[in-house]
């Protein structure tokens, strides 16, 4: 009986102790006192990293500026929602490493540096050629940096691109983000890039940005093509027009991509993608590594200046075959580039083999560098024309009735 009472008493005391400890523990939990008011932040919207001639790193940030003149507008309910382009400022610091530069950044800013809203990371061309590995470590180690941010490689220096103030969007960061969203292929996020760079193939693709300098307009950036990154460094760049095969193989192609064929002289037929999907199917037979690229696409005809009538099924079949041919040519070309020219597995074949043949992969993974160029690729391309359009043949051509 007494024992029972004792146990109860002990439990009661323990409960009391827990009740006392909990609030104390709550207050001392680490890392939670650093609250910052939003108006004490220097909100970085874009980050650019360049390599200077004296082998230093130059960190350039685009900071959204809240100017006092703006606030008067927002006082009344009539608050000005307009966001001109002159509201961002550039700050640039140099350092021996990116971390060094980042810590110096605070010295030139009156507000707390805030990385959490940086949507764009731009690497200069020199920087990319020299190697991204050091910088990527910094960028992926910080919990405050968004992994979903878009990564670009600038054709010139990153600073030059960040200094632009595109007229329509709030800042160059918004402009690039919107551009990559509306592209016909998905861009590369910081997370994707780090996965590709640290993964089995150690090769990645990153969109490149160049500047259009039109004399009638303020200069603005555009997405010009793809940079090939192998073992942490950029080895080549290709222009947007030649990227179709890469997009198919990476399965990053988006609807709205338009393919134009020229069956006859100055006769064009254009189709737009409704949906496209590629799957890579690996097989290993007697040490012959094979990949079957199976791509399915649904397209609609958007322009027809040929003499053909696409209300006739035969013509449609013919076009489907031609399209498949065209896609095959592009894919083959892209594979040749990767296997022969770059020797870089940017299509992540390594992952596919690893997944399907984990045991073989474990034995052979060190040989991947020499295996990759020898991987046989078989194409199974299937194009279906889903919507031939409202008219069959081009009814406006003089010779047609």
């Amino acid at each position, binding site marked *: 009986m007494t024992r029972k009472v004792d146990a109860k008493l002990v439990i009661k005391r323990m409960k009391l102790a827990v009740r006392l400890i909990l609030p104390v523990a709550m207050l001392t939990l680490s890392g939670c006192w650093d*609250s910052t*008011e*939003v108006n004490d932040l220097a909100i970085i919207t874009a980050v650019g990293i360049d390599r200077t001639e004296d082998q230093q790193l130059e960190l350039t940030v685009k900071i959204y500026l*809240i100017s*006092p003149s703006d606030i008067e507008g927002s006082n009344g309910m009539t608050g000005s929602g307009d966001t001109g382009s002159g509201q961002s400022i550039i700050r640039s610091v140099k350092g021996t490493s990116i971390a060094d530069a980042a810590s110096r950044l605070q010295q030139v800013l009156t507000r707390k540096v*805030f990385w*959490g809203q940086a949507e764009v990371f731009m690497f200069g061309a020199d920087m990319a050629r020299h190697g991204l590995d050091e910088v990527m470590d910094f960028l992926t180690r910080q919990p405050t940096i968004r992994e979903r941010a878009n990564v670009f490689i600038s054709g010139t220096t990153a600073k030059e691109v960040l200094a632009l103030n595109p007229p329509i969007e709030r800042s160059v960061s918004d402009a690039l983000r919107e551009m990559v969203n509306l592209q016909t292929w998905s861009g590369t996020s910081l997370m994707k890039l780090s996965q590709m760079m640290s993964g089995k193939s150690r090769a990645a693709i990153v969109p490149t940005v160049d500047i259009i300098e039109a004399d009638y307009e303020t200069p603005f950036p555009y997405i010009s093509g793809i940079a090939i990154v192998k073992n942490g460094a950029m080895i080549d760049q290709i222009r947007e027009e030649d990227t179709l095969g890469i997009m198919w193989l990476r399965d990053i192609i988006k609807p709205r991509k338009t393919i134009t064929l020229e069956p006859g002289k100055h006769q064009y037929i254009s189709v737009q993608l409704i949906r496209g999907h590629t799957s890579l199917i690996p097989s290993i037979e007697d040490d012959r590594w094979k990949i079957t690229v199976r791509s399915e696409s649904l397209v609609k005809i958007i322009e027809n200046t040929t003499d053909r009538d696409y209300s006739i099924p035969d013509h449609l079949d013919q076009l489907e075959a031609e399209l498949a041919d065209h896609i095959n040519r592009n894919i083959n070309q892209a594979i040749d580039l990767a296997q022969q020219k770059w020797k870089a597995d940017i299509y992540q074949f390594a992952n596919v083999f690893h997944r399907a043949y984990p045991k073989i992969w474990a034995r052979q993974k060190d040989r991947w560098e020499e295996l990759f160029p020898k991987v046989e690729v078989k194409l199974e391309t299937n194009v279906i024309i889903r919507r031939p359009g409202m008219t069959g043949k081009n009814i406006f051509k003089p010779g047609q009735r």
Partner: protein
Amino acid sequence: MITVSHILSRLLRSGQRRSAQAEQSIHHLQVQADLSEELHVNVELLRNIYADCSDIIFHEFVIGGRTRAVLIYIDGLINVEEIDRHVLAPLQRDNLDEHSLSNIRRTIPVTSITTVKTPVDAIEAISNGRPVLLVEKEPQGLSFGLSEWEKRAIEEPTSESVLKGPREGFIESIRTNTALLRRKVRSPNLKIRMIRKGNYTRTSIAIAYIDGIASPALVEEVMRRLQPIEIDGILESTYIEELIEDNPFSLFPQMLATERPDVAAAYLLEGCVVLLVDGSPSVRIAPITMYSLLQSPEDYYERYFIGSAIRWLRYLFFAISLLGPSLYVAILTFHQEMIPTPLLLTMARSREQIPFPALIEALLMETMFEALREAGARLPKQIGSAVSIVGALVIGQAAISAGIVSSPMVMVVAITGIASFMSPRFNIGITVRLLRFPMMFLAGFLGFLGVILGIIIILNHLLTLRSFGVPYLSPLAPMRNRDLKDVLIRVPTRMKAEYPHAPADRNHERQSSDLWSDSGNGDDST
């Protein structure tokens, strides 16, 4: 014996405890157990007890010209006209041989006549507005159910208005209220037990339940908790609620308050006990769960999908009213990366010239809002509207122009304010409004971590809380599938065939299950 009690009463009279005193004086009367045969002794006794009570009338008259009698009543609590016509007139005109109590009883054409045997009985009857007739040579008296006093008319309860559904509400008179209940539930199984509490107020408390649905253990538990109450007065049902609730220190109400007979009847049909307190139009219902506080009678008067949708809206805004400002403060001071960039930039711009941290800003606005709400509720209606206009200006436009608060904060406060008014029960709304403040502090100091800690603490409390033995969060925690039909969705009435939280050994069926299986046969025959 008398001397002992006399000394005791003296001692206690000099003491401080008024309730004990009252008890003692009644005890003093009980010593002289019965009424005397001498009329003047009885009258003298009652006159002493009712000394300095100017509203007590001792009407002396003679029955049939021979027997002296006294009619005692409280002026204003009886129907004088009825007394004159049905009690005094027949008695004064009387020519009976013998004026025994039974003869008198036969003469008087009144339905409710009870015999009064002791002075305590007499006082009880007089206090309740029943006139008492004492007759010469009779050690007993008669009391007549001819009480009548000014009552409020049955109106729609303003605090619980509905668009559809009955508009009558309880009033201050308990008899009217039990009648309203009885009009909803006509079965003799509706039991209404009556007890009196309050040493001075002698307030009637009615315990209503449906025999066969309500668990007997529950009824016993309610009675067991009511019995030991010793209090000087009960002026409102909250007095009782506070004395019998499971956890008096909880912020959450454990009994449901309603002024609507239809709500009370609905809960009676679910096996709950309804407590009615004389003098209070608001009755208390137990046991309840958290979800009953978020349900409106309207849910059942609209068709089920509307009821379910509105219920979900209410749940959502219940969460908003608890967490709205704290989430805003937490995101704005700790987790700026969570806001979409364009929105953050707009917010940053609106906060640019605000001198206070977001937490202070939120506290300022919330306190202001609560003050305005309270001022508006307490003021007469004509001035109330003026307060709301000035208040809207103060916490709206002017505060922003003055640079005291930012416009997103005004929006958050306004949305939270609306959200807190969405809870159909006022008492849960006020609980959440109170909890909002500690949540804001937690958010301001610890960010989301603090908010989550706060939620955990609140949930923990709710999980341990019980209302008359029923877990507060049931049927979700602990999960009881059978009872889920009325929590997340309001199922169609035809699917509510079983009683919620009914004990296993009792009648489960709410409607005949044959009703729907037989309907097919009916179609065939036509």
